């Protein structure tokens, strides 16, 4: 099947860079020129025809096809083996509960957090240890970037265009991490969210920037988790009080204290559900007296239910750190977890 995209002829790789930058087709960084061979290799790896419709962004009635997504994935630096993850992430983002248009156009300036689980992490070399929320490895870097380029180019989510973010955050370049499933006894995130453990999966969440915490002066689970809960309360006071999905990133040092005490992810979520709460009146302490009104004693929970918490084991082995990743806007957008349908062991057909 021929590709549908318009083709441009450029003199060399430098001319290609200028063409893409000049047209507003990049995130400001250099791109890999998307040639037909490279794009077809991605589609073949995912066993997906170019005209496959992944879905339609319903607010602006924009279709997303596999071909256009593959072009953007190549530009981001993806290898063919990365493409099934990108494809699944976009499919998840197109679920109604994700509220794709709102999440990508809002002044709130969130990014799409992507969490990888299951065997595909190891096949891609996706690291969930050192620098897990930064530039940890090639796979997570290019997968996260592919999502941003696809938003920019397919859905026109450009700053000042559809993207109305006041500030945005650095995760809008790439915001992808793998869970460190090898170094924990906890159930992986995708199992917590109802998928079989042997499945590879992608979870997407419309997310603010990570808020790092530190507590290396205790081994008591309640004290460790109180620091996380306090950071969530700070987010509720300083940013948004509304309940939604929160992610906790718990690196190995703190994780081992929790695991040694027999705490599961469900125990953590139950504790956080009980502790991450504020009264509306607390807004008066942080300059927001004007919106307390007559509801000062009304209590707000960060989580509508414990299962709204995404607990992810990730991070380097040393350091009493952790991170709270807040939702874009309460429960307006819900995290979505989908299994990766393509056989990543198989390679392209006929080989």
């Amino acid at each position, binding site marked *: 099947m021929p590709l549908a995209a318009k083709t441009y002829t450029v003199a060399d790789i430098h001319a290609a860079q200028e063409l893409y930058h000049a047209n507003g087709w990049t995130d400001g960084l250099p791109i890999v*020129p998307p040639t037909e061979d490279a794009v077809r290799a991605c589609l073949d790896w995912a066993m997906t025809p170019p005209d496959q419709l992944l879905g339609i962004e319903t607010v602006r009635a924009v279709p997303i096809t596999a071909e256009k997504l593959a072009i953007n994935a190549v530009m981001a630096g993806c290898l063919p083996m990365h493409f099934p993850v990108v494809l699944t992430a976009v499919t998840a983002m197109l679920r109604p509960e994700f509220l794709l248009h709102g999440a990508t156009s809002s002044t709130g300036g969130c990014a799409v957090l992507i969490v990888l689980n299951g065997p595909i992490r190891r096949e891609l070399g996706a690291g969930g240890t050192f620098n897990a929320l930064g530039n940890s490895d090639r796979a997570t870097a290019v997968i996260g970037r592919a999502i941003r380029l696809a938003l920019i180019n397919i859905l026109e989510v450009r700053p000042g265009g559809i993207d109305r973010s006041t500030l945005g955050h650095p995760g809008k370049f790439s915001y992808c991490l793998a869970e460190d499933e090898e170094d924990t006894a906890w159930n992986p995130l995708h199992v917590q969210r109802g998928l079989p453990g042997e499945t590879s999966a992608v979870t997407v969440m419309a997310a603010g920037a990570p808020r790092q915490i530190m507590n290396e002066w205790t081994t008591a689970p309640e004290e460790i988790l109180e620091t996380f809960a306090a950071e969530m309360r700070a987010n509720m006071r300083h940013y948004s009080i509304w309940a939604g999905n929160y992610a906790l990133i718990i690196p190995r040092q703190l994780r081992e204290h929790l695991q040694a005490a027999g705490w599961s992810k469900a125990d953590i979520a139950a504790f956080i559900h009980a502790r991450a709460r504020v009264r509306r009146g607390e807004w008066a302490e942080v300059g927001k007296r004007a919106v307390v009104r007559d509801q000062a004693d009304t209590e707000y929970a960060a989580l509508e239910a414990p299962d709204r918490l995404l607990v992810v084991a990730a991070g380097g082995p040393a350091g009493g750190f952790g991170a709270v990743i807040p939702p874009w806007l309460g429960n307006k957008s819900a995290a979505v977890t989908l299994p990766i349908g393509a056989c990543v062991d198989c390679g392209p057909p006929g080989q």
Partner: protein
Amino acid sequence: MVLQVLDPTNETAPPVGQPAPRLASLAGKAVGFISNGKEGTTGFFAHLDRMLREELGVAEVIRRVKSNYSAPANPDIVDELRRWQAVVTGIGD
């Protein structure tokens, strides 16, 4: 080395609706406001309501608020606006 590279954009413009005929005057008309519900809309739409009635002779102003300020208007609001002669919608942060 000469390269053949592909267009990463959607290439097809999203469908756009046909604009309704412009009104010659707002006098005597029903004008709906669709607010996103944010704090800043309260004062803005109150002022606009007064201007339309007092300065332009609008007969009726109907105010509706979306249930989710980051999503399209609820279907019942969209259905209702067929009965209005003009609509003002906008964001208010």
